[in-house]
């Protein structure tokens, strides 16, 4: 009765919300989203460079330029966010003891992602791919899963580290 009354008042006037946070360890971690985000950065960088080479640009080209920059920015944020989650939530003492390079690698990924966001620089975005591939290698190793390298079957068709899940 009282709940119903409060609920209908809430629907009209909206009470403040207090959070009762949970930290449920969902255990779903996969660096593939980081790798795909970096491939997107590389692809958008390629497309931006192509557009830049055009001598005369139409209004559509200018609009496309803005859209590509926005996509590159968005995927840079995704890279940072996803790396932070795996590094902060998944990596614990045993993983860090096995791979003491992890902290430095994560920091490098952060800095290189910033560079890739700030510039239209293919070399920087390729360097970022090699860093996140190493991050993926470490991640899968800590789970006892072998990896292999293969070219992603879509542009920019670059080598990506994939887990060999058939073996495990």
């Amino acid at each position: 009765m009282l709940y119903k009354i409060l609920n209908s008042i809430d629907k009209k006037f909206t009470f403040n919300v207090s959070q009762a946070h949970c930290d449920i360890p969902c255990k779903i971690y996969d660096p593939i989203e980081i790798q795909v985000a970096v491939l997107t950065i590389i692809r958008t960088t390629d497309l931006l460079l192509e557009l830049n080479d055009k001598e005369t640009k139409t209004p559509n080209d200018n609009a496309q330029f803005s859209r590509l920059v926005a996509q590159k920015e968005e995927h840079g944020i995704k890279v940072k966010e996803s790396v932070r989650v795996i590094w902060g939530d998944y990596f614990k003492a045993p993983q860090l003891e096995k791979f003491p390079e992890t902290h430095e690698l994560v920091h490098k990924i952060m800095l290189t992602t910033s560079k890739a966001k700030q510039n239209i620089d293919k070399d920087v975005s390729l360097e970022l791919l090699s860093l996140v591939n190493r991050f993926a290698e470490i991640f899968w190793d800590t789970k006892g899963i072998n990896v292999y390298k293969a070219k992603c079957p879509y542009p920019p068709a670059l080598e990506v580290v994939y887990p060999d899940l058939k073996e495990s």
Partner: protein
Amino acid sequence: MFKLGIDKILGDSMSPNIKDGNYVIFFSSKRMKIIPNKVYRLSHPQFGSIIKRLSYEDADGNFWFKGDSHDSTSLKKIGAIAKGQINGRIWFSIDSESGITFP
């Protein structure tokens, strides 16, 4: 000054005493006592407005809170809470099925 308020609860960290979707009635006053095992409303720099149960007060006068559920954000993650961040004590909770309960 005595103040009374209503909050809607989001999340299950205080379950089973206060469930997701419950309403809570809280009060605050200048002379509000901060007592271990009571549930308080806090202003947290990272989590915003949260409700948690007071675990203990440390030697430096900071307060340490935790949730009732095992899945709750840990005491360490919530961190030390200063008295000024505690802005209410939960008086009772209103659940759609069990009605009024005192957490």
